[in-house]
């Protein structure tokens, strides 16, 4: 099975804000590989400076990488222009954290959704008007929501509009960057259920970026954990959460405040701050905070390596970028 999305060796740097003539650069992504199967959800987790949003922007064609490739359904999208880029964009659509930021406040909800249909020339004008109602229905809004403005909607309703607009062009992939982070937990549950239903009914794939591990665990089929511009571990959802291998993944999972008073943390899982991506640590980027570090960690760049033996085909192998936790191979 070929992947719907195949990212290879992605590198992104940009000038550090306020660095003046000295031209320091932010190392946002430093060689990232990721693949996503049709109809699956790949969860991307990490803390500040991990590069997860930059990776999302590269896939959306909003950020041009310094190096590497992004292949979508067999087509290299890095460097695409004009109509070829437009064709790809209708198949890869964004959903952002704050729908107020992506919806025009002067427009009615109906117009915002229709704009997406117009932009990609979907059907005749009469078709598009009907399609707007269908899309609103699909995301659980009533037809009279079409005449309202974004400020007249609740946060959850606005995110439903954001999803309807993303679905307008009939995408194969939705890149969702923190789509439920601004929502209350009961509303968050509604939006997560909606996304799961859309995936079942329409077969759409999600690249799901979130800082919230509980949400990622709930929605994902595969998960990658990022730290300072690198993926440190990637696996099937169940493997990653049941059997995390990388010391950073373990600490990250331990740090999540779980809603069970009998499972209280007795120690701080990870001390120290996240280093700046402007001047990231040498070797393994996690080594200054790592409880398992050895001398070579500050020199050698770990690469993602399968854990244990490769199992059945079609199964994403569990891979980790840490030679210390991996048994030596013959």
């Amino acid at each position: 099975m070929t992947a719907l999305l195949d990212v290879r060796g992605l590198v992104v740097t940009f000038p550090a804000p306020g660095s003046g003539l000295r031209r320091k650069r932010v190392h946002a992504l430093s060689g990232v590989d990721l693949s996503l199967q049709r109809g699956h959800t790949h969860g991307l987790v990490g803390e500040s400076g991990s590069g997860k949003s930059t990776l999302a922007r590269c896939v959306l064609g909003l950020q041009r990488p310094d190096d590497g490739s992004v292949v979508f359904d067999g087509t290299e999208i890095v460097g695409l222009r004009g109509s070829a880029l437009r064709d790809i964009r209708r198949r890869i659509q964004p959903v952002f954290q704050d729908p107020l930021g992506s919806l025009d406040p002067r427009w009615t909800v109906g117009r915002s959704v229709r704009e997406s249909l117009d932009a990609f020339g979907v059907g005749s004008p009469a078709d598009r008007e009907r399609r707007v109602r269908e899309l609103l229905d699909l995301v659980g809004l009533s037809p009279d929501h079409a005449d309202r403005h974004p400020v007249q909607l609740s946060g959850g309703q606005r995110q439903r509009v954001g999803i309807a607009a993303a679905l307008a062009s009939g995408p194969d992939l939705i890149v969702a960057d923190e789509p439920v982070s601004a929502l209350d937990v009961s509303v968050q549950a509604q939006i997560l259920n909606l996304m799961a239903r859309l995936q079942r009914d329409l077969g759409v794939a999600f690249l799901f970026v979130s800082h919230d591990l509980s949400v990622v665990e709930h929605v994902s089929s595969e998960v990658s954990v990022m730290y300072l511009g690198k993926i440190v571990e990637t696996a099937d959802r169940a493997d990653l959460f049941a059997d995390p291998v990388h010391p950073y993944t373990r600490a990250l999972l331990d740090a999540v405040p779980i809603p069970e008073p009998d499972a209280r943390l007795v120690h701080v899982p990870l001390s120290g701050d996240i280093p700046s991506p402007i001047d990231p640590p040498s070797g393994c980027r996690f080594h200054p905070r790592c409880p398992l570090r050895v001398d070579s960690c500050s020199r050698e760049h770990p690469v993602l390596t399968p854990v244990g033996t490769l199992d059945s085909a079609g199964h994403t192998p569990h891979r980790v970028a840490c030679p210390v936790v991996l048994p030596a191979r013959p």
Partner: protein
Amino acid sequence: MLQINDVRVRIPVAGGRWVEAVDGVTLAVGSGEIVGLVGESGCGKSTLGGAVMGLLPGGAQLSGQVLLDGRDLGGLTAEEYRRVRGNDIALVSQDPSASLDPTFAVGAQVAEAIRNHRDIGRREARERAVELLRAVGIPDPGARYSDPPHRFSGGMKQRVVIAAALANDPSVLIADEPTTALDVTIQAQILHLLRDLTVRTGTGVLMITHDLGVVAQVCDRIAVMYAGQVVEQGTVRDVFADPLHPYTRALLDSQPAAHHRSGDLPVILGQVPDLTDPPAGCRFAARCARVHDRCTTAPPVVETRGGGRVACWLHDALPPVAQEVS
């Protein structure tokens, strides 16, 4: 310590109407105790924090009693309240950058917090500030004393804010979403710090948060707010193990962590009521899975296990809460 008795806050809005933002809240925070005040956007939890701090929006009407170490804060003048704030009662809010002056050295800001309330010399205030910065985990506090806030990460800035808040050994700390803006590994550090400091200093904490995970990890007791009212309170262990109010149960059930083996998450249908015209009776009734005919009348507040309370007709066989004696 802190005793909140039947507090109501009305806030004026356009058209001469009032939002009944807080409606009859009774709550206590004991010495060295962390009480989690949870609820979703607009439930009134931050307004209640504002009422305790004497920092309500202009025109707001407050009734009921806020007692701090037995002293009624309700009758204080603005000037008297200013002396109470930062001394007997202190605030840690979500965004540490907004709490710190960007142009001053962090150590000087902690020292100023001390000198605002105590008649001590600069040298002594500086020594105490360095000691506080050390206590909240700032490495090499003597050297970092003179650094401006922008030289600190978000987590380190929040540590400085906590140091300033604790500068005068307050009886109570109001912590309004203190870790919401922080990364999860840093959040764990700050929660651990707060827990550790309350044990060491005896300061009580009212922890305002939307995150039930945070409550489960650090709080001793929990109060759940919905539409301006506390619908349930009790020990964290009791309430998480056996939530009695249908809203508490629904809130716990909608946590993704509880249902990670896929399948749909339970949701709460409908919308929070309009608090300019709140429904008579139970405010949650319109969204409640267990609504019945009695719910059109305000539910009784009854006493549950472990000194807890719940306001729901499903539990009216439990003994009613005795009238507060003040």
